[in-house]
C-alpha cells in the first residue's frame, strides 16, 4: 500500500503542474440565465428536445476524419491555453469548453500527448467552473497521465469524458450549455480544417469541409430549439446562419440514394457525387470561420 502511494507521487506532481500551466484561481464570473419556470413555451421546448435529437459529429470524429483526409498537425492554430482564465461568463466557458475539447481531440488523434494534457487541463478547468466536476475531475487527469503512452486508451478516456460532460449537462436541464459547447467544438473543428487547408490543401480535405454543410444544418436545428430563450444561443445561431449562407453556394453533397450490399455490409449513398469546394468558396468559409471563432476565444 505504501509502495502504491509512493508510486503515485510523480502522477500527482505532473497533474499539479498541468493545473498550474492553465492559469490560476478562477476569476469571478457571471451566469448564464436558465429559465426554471414551467411555462407552456418551455414545456413545448422540453417536449421537442426530448424527442427530436440532432447528432453533430463529435470533436474526436471530426479530428479522425481530418487525419484520414491527409491533414497535418499544426499547434500554432489552436487556442492558447493562457486564454482559459479570460472566460468569465458561463456562455464563454461553454463555448470554449467545446473549443478546447476540439483542440484536445485534434492533438490526441495526431498523437501530440503533451499538448493533449495541457488542453485536458484547460477543459477540466472550464468544466469545473460550469459545475460539471462530477463528470470531469482530477481522477480523469490521473487516468490520462497513466495512459499517456497508449494512444487508443487515451482517446477512449477523452471520448468518455466528453460524453460524460455532455450527458451530465443534458440530464440536469442545462441543454443550452451543452448546445453552446457543441457549437464551440464544431466551429473549432471547421476552423482547424480550413486553416490546415491553407497550407496543406488536398481534394479529400476540401471534400470534408464541404460536407460540413450537412452537419451545420443539424447544428442549426439543435440551436433552433433554444433560440427564443437564450441571448447567447441566438447570437451563435446568427453566426451559424451566416456560415449557412456561404455553404448554400456549395453543391449539395447528398444526392446519392442507391442502397447496395458489399461483402455483407449495406452501402448507402451510392451514385452520389463527392462534395467539393471552389477556391472562392473555401476562402469565404475559412475567413468567416476564423472571424466567428475569434469572437468566441477573445
Amino acid at each position, binding site marked *: 500500500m505504501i509502495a502504491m502511494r509512493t508510486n503515485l507521487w510523480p502522477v500527482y506532481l505532473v497533474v499539479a503542474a498541468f493545473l498550474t500551466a492553465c492559469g490560476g484561481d478562477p476569476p469571478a464570473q457571471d451566469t448564464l440565465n436558465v429559465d426554471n419556470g414551467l411555462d407552456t413555451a418551455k414545456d413545448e421546448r422540453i417536449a421537442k428536445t426530448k424527442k427530436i435529437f440532432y447528432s453533430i459529429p463529435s470533436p474526436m470524429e471530426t479530428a479522425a476524419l481530418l487525419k484520414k483526409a491527409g491533414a497535418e498537425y499544426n499547434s500554432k492554430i489552436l487556442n492558447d491555453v493562457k486564454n482559459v482564465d479570460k472566460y468569465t461568463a458561463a456562455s464563454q466557458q461553454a463555448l470554449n469548453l467545446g473549443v478546447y475539447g476540439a483542440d484536445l481531440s485534434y492533438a490526441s488523434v495526431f498523437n501530440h500527448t503533451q499538448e493533449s494534457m495541457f488542453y485536458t487541463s484547460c477543459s477540466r478547468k472550464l468544466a469545473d467552473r460550469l459545475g460539471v466536476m462530477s463528470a470531469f475531475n482530477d481522477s480523469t487527469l490521473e487516468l490520462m497521465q497513466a495512459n499517456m503512452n497508449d494512444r487508443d486508451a487515451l482517446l477512449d478516456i477523452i471520448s468518455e469524458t466528453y460524453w460524460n460532460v455532455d450527458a451530465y449537462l443534458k440530464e440536469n436541464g442545462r441543454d443550452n450549455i451543452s448546445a453552446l459547447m457543441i457549437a464551440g467544438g464544431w466551429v473549432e473543428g471547421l476552423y482547424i480544417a480550413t486553416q490546415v487547408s491553407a497550407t496543406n490543401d488536398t481534394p479529400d480535405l476540401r471534400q470534408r469541409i464541404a460536407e460540413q454543410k450537412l452537419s451545420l444544418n443539424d447544428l442549426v436545428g439543435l440551436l433552433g430549439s433554444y433560440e427564443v430563450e437564450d441571448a447567447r444561443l441566438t447570437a451563435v445561431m446568427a453566426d451559424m446562419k451566416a456560415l449557412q449562407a456561404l455553404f448554400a453556394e456549395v453543391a449539395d453533397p447528398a444526392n446519392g440514394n442507391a442502397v447496395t450490399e458489399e461483402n455483407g455490409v449495406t452501402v448507402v449513398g*451510392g451514385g452520389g457525387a463527392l462534395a467539393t469546394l471552389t477556391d472562392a468558396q473555401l476562402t469565404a468559409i475559412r475567413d468567416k470561420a476564423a472571424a466567428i471563432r475569434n469572437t468566441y476565444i477573445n
Partner: protein
Amino acid sequence: MRNVRPILVKTLLTGAVLVSAVVANAQCRSFAKNKCVPELAPFKFNETFNAAQLAPGEEAEVNLTFYSGQEYRVMVCTHPILGEVNWKLVDENNRIVFESLADEPKHHFDLKAASTVPMKVIVWVPGAGKSDMVHVGCVAIMVGFKE
C-alpha cells in the same frame, strides 16, 4: 395558512417531479454507458448522448450525417422494463433503409457510406395494450464509427 397549503403541496410535487426526472435521466446515462456503449464494439462510440425516457406510444428521432468512406454501426438500446421497440433508418426522402420491429428485434445495423448522406433514426414504442400499467423506460440511440 389555508391558502399556503395548496402552494406548498404544488411546490413539493413540482420539486418531486423535477428530482425524479433528474434521477431517471441519470439512470438513463448510466444504463446507456454500461449496457449500450460496450455493444458498439468494435466501432468507436461517436460520443453523442441521444437518450430519452419513453412510454408506450411515444416516438423519438435522431437526425444524423454519415460521411463518405466511413463505416458505422447504428444501435437502439432499450431498457428491459420497456420491452422491445420498433425502429427504422430512413434517408432524406423517408425511404426505409433498415427496419426492426418489436416482434423480431435487431438491436444494431452496420452500414458504409459511399457518399455523405443525411439520415434519420426513428424509434417508436408499441402501445401498452390492455394493461393499466404504463412503463416508462430509457431508449438510447447510439452511433459508432470506425476510426
